[in-house]
């Protein structure tokens, strides 16, 4: 479904991504782990096209998308949520979701009809609002919503384009344990044919939802395996769990 071959990215003399390769099966749930500065978000930025790689190739269904722009890759079925909320602050929750849904349905260019009143768009808006538990505040402006609600909307925007590949950058960053449980359920309830890549710091959530785990350190893939293999792996313990335990 999504394949990365020898992806490299340098900023000047700093190699942030070093020959990263992996391949995702359709419907796979992949969690990317790694300490701060491991290059996880850079990897996402490369995948969606917000950064151009120094070398290497990104393929969707075997076709290279490396030369495509951000919007073209989104049209190819890739969608992401951001680590820092990146929303339409002045609009309501409903308007946010409707903008995303219309874009996903390629109805954003209609000049004679209103996408916000389109039945398909409305259906997606209600559907996604239900998925991310925002049904009650659909008509509230985003700038008045709580941080937790905005986190939910962040994921909701990514879902509303009806992607084939969903990239979530730390969806639970800054939220409490109650919401982590809700995200866990959200991810398990996603359709099984949706391929999902998640950057996650919450290890319980990571081990719960992942089919496979990729561990990055200083831009290198240092480990790839199932959650069980990850738990027992010494390198992973040293570079990631070790740090994590020391922090706690």
């Amino acid at each position, binding site marked *: 479904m999504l394949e990365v071959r020898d992806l490299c990215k340098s900023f000047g003399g700093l190699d942030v991504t070093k020959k990263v390769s992996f391949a995702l099966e359709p419907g796979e749930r992949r969690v990317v782990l790694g300490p701060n500065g491991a290059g996880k978000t850079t990897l996402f930025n490369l995948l969606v096209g917000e950064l151009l790689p120094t070398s290497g190739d990104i393929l969707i269904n075997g076709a290279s998308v490396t030369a495509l722009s951000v919007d073209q890759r989104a049209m190819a079925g890739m969608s992401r949520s951001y680590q820092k909320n*990146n929303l339409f602050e002045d609009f309501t929750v409903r308007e946010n979701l409707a*903008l995303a849904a219309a874009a996903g349905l390629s109805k*954003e*260019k209609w000049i004679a*009809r209103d996408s916000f009143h389109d039945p398909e768009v409305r259906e997606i808006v209600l559907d996604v609002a239900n998925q991310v538990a925002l049904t009650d505040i659909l008509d509230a402006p985003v700038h008045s919503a709580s941080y937790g609600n905005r986190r939910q909307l962040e994921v909701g925007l990514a879902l509303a384009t009806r992607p084939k590949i969903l990239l979530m950058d730390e969806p639970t960053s800054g939220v409490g344990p109650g919401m982590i449980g809700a995200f866990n359920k959200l991810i398990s309830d996603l359709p099984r044919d949706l391929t999902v890549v998640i950057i996650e710091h919450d290890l319980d959530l990571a081990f719960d939802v992942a089919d496979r785990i990729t561990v990055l350190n200083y831009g290198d893939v240092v480990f790839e395996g199932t959650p069980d293999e990850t738990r027992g792996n010494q390198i992973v313990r040293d570079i990631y769990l070790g740090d994590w335990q020391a922090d706690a």
Partner: protein
Amino acid sequence: MFHQTPARSFTLAVVLAALVAYATFGGFFAREIVIEIAILAILAISLDFVAGFGGMVSLFHGAVMGLSAYGYSVLTAKFGIHPIPAAFAGIFLAASFGAAVAAIASRTSGIFFIMATLAFGQMLYTIIFKSRWLGGDDGMGGIPRFDASWIGLDFNDSLQFAIFAVFGIAVCYGIAALLLRSAFGRTMCGIHGNEPRMRALGVSTWKHKTAAFAISSAIAGVAGVFAAQHTQYISPELLFWTVSGEVLIVVILGGLGTLVGPVLGAAIFVLLKHEVGNYTDHWHIVVGLLLIVTVMAGGRGIYGQAEHWITGRSRKARESLNA
């Protein structure tokens, strides 16, 4: 996001009715003022469409209007082409120029975007200013108005032409409002709100912005056709960047991003110019003071500020009812 609220429809209806009444009962000079207001109002609508809702502040709308005026004038006065196809050609020319400039400029944003539009606008001004064939700084005359005798109207009559110009405001406002309420307009507001996210959702934002500018330029082109027909004489002054600056002031004075505010702003601006102009040549001082006051009051403009007060009051009233 654009909402055609009842308050906006009401304000538009009042302004348009007042213009018609003023033209009808005010005599020749009033009609000239009404036509001047209409041209400025249409130009302000076109600018608010991209600046207020698309976040793309431009300093070349005057040049776009002038280009359309020149297109219309050359075709009618020099080549004797029928005014109606000539008007469409002028509007098309304006839209094409707007699209071409936006295709380049919309890769930048903010102050760089403004400077790019200013540069292209001034280029066009200079070309026309230097062109002997177009009359250079002497301009061109002998421009005909539409011949509406087939529906029993005579646009050489100043009252009928004034009412036709007010009708032009209504049509341009309607087109802009419909587009803002379409998926296209929603997406444009989304790009204004958060362009990188819109791109991440799969929207080619620079194409969208280019199309928005083409539409806005077409509306500015309508103002150009009116401008050429009004005085039946045009000069490069129409394209000079201060014209674009003036219409930007009108939009801010009336209320950026309210669509009806700029129409009101145009009426206030032109009336002030003539009324204060009776007493002193320095009428700009009064406009400047008014602009400072509206900006200091919150930058919502005259209409925007009124709307803000009214919605704030009705919200308070609702809350006290609920309490």
